[in-house]
């Protein structure tokens, strides 16, 4: 299979999946529509992390912090008895997440490797404590988003997020938008530098790139996109708790990226589906489902480098290899 063909097949596959997503609410009940919406939101979250892990080579173990900050921002911006303005709340949430990522990035990007992993985790934990311990965001029990944001522009209502179906399509649009946005960014001069940093940061420096600034920009961007996911999540469920920021969430989203195969935007979304699917399946089999989940993670690391999205290629390779040998 030549590369051009395979990229065409990939594009067709993506369009088929998109068509499936668009058609889904016609078949699924409101519960499944909401569940798929949740997975798509996690897909956005995973893509934002993939920008760091898969493309820039920055293994962040604190990405849930930015997701959570955006979720809290929309909760706090929503008045008690009225909806917030969508066109205000969405940018504000994303900006809040990006701003936090920028400030934290100034600290954590001074470190590398194992340090970076630990320090991102520690800073996320710090943000967790801010929401858990102080009255800022309703404390440990969490806070409601009492009303879904209002999308009206000067009296005109383009769509209504209180309608589950419309909210679902809003999520689908957001997913596509983030996917296209990241695809464009990654082929831009900026994106090429990020991939270069992942491959060989030292060489990028000696070529004259101020890699710190690029990494900071990527970190901020990823934080902002995680904020898009956090915003949608809070709007979908109407409830925000400090646990959205816990390090287990950071671990889970990292797992989604890996399951799908890092450095692959579509893979991140596949990873979100696979992760939630496994969770549902295992928790059906046994209440000790985390044992199975842990086993899958360990097995994936040991036996499946490249993740799910690399599977077809690996299988093809194996098949072709055997044919050549035979």
């Amino acid at each position, binding site marked *: 299979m030549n590369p051009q063909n395979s990229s065409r097949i990939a594009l067709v596959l993506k369009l088929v999946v998109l068509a499936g997503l668009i058609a889904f609410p016609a078949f699924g009940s409101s519960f499944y529509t909401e569940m798929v919406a949740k997975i798509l939101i996690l897909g956005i979250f995973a893509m934002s992390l993939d920008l760091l892990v898969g493309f820039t080579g920055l293994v962040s173990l604190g990405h849930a912090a930015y997701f959570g900050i955006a979720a809290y921002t929309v909760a706090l911006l929503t008045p008690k008895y009225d909806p917030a303005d969508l066109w205000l709340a969405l940018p504000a949430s994303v900006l809040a997440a990006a701003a936090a990522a920028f400030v934290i990035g100034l600290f954590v990007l001074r470190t590398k490797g194992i340090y970076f992993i630990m320090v991102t985790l520690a800073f996320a934990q710090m943000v967790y404590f801010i929401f858990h311990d102080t009255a800022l965001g309703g404390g440990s029990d969490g806070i409601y988003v009492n009303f879904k944001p209002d999308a009206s522009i000067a009296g005109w209502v383009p769509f209504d997020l209180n309608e589950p179906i419309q909210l679902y399509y809003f999520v689908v649009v957001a997913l596509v938008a983030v996917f296209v946005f990241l695809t*464009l*960014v990654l*082929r*831009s*001069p*900026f*994106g*090429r*530098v990020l991939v*270069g940093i992942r*491959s*060989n940061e*030292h*060489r*990028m*420096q*000696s*070529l*004259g*790139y*101020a*890699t710190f600034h*690029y990494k900071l*920009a990527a970190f901020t961007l990823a934080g902002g996109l995680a904020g898009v996911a956090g915003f949608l999540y809070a709007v979908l469920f109407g409830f925000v708790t400090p646990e959205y920021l816990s390090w287990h969430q950071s671990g889970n989203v990292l797992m989604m990226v890996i399951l799908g195969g890092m450095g692959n935007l579509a893979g991140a979304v596949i990873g979100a589906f696979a992760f939630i699917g496994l969770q549902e399946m295992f928790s059906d089999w046994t209440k000790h489902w985390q044992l199975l989940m842990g086993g899958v993670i360990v097995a994936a690391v040991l036996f499946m480098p490249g993740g799910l999205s690399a599977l077809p290629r690996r299988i093809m390779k194996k098949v072709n290899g055997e044919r050549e040998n035979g």
Partner: protein
Amino acid sequence: MAEMTTADLTVVAGASAAVPGEAMMVADKLTRRFGGLAANQDVCLTLERGKLHALLGPNGAGKSTCINMLSGDLPPSEGRILLGGKDITRLSAAQRSRIGIGRSYQRTNIFPGFTVLENCRLAAQSRNPRPWKIFTDALGLSDTVDRARAAIVEAGLAGREGRIAGTMSHGEQRQLEIAMVLATDARVLLLDEPLAGMGSEESAQMVELLKGLKKNRAILLVEHDMDAVFAVADTITVMVNGVVLESGPPEQIRNSADVQTAYLGEGHV
């Protein structure tokens, strides 16, 4: 850190561009200590436009330390580095690259997963990075791509643009290393053993390449291969135990008794 903007420094480097043979880069009494040990002690070097300056010495003489200080990979303990008369001692490696100092590495230091073109394109892009153009296809920025292609041709890799760098032969990877430096439009080249691990045929090609590069550029060449050094160098500096033993034109070095005993006598001939 003393901050100079890239624009200022480009002017600095450009100011001396017109005069061939003029000192472009000067190392003034560079000293670097690791713990109590001096890896370099009061090393002085001058790199001139149109000239190739070779740095010789046995293993552990401090050649790598020296080139690392010049490129900004290692801060000196004492001494100054000048470019076009301006003190650049405190600039980072990235800042030095942006004012026209390019270096290659002893151990091949490329982007192995990228194509030859992308390796050089990234290098060329650093001259005009435009990071805010996040919706523009990098491959559509013709100034960058053209510069990369020109560097590939100049380094003798014409026709290899599409190869994945990591899959090429060792010699080709060394050429790519040079091509990347060229793509940055560097006026001062710091080349760390470009011939390391090459066969004789590949070496000969590289020597020809180096001869061609001298024009309009100042080159520092750290190299083990004696024949190659004497074939291309205009000036040779010999280091032993972190200090400069002798510096001068090739004939002077060839005939120096000190060099004979301290270096050539060790069976490296």
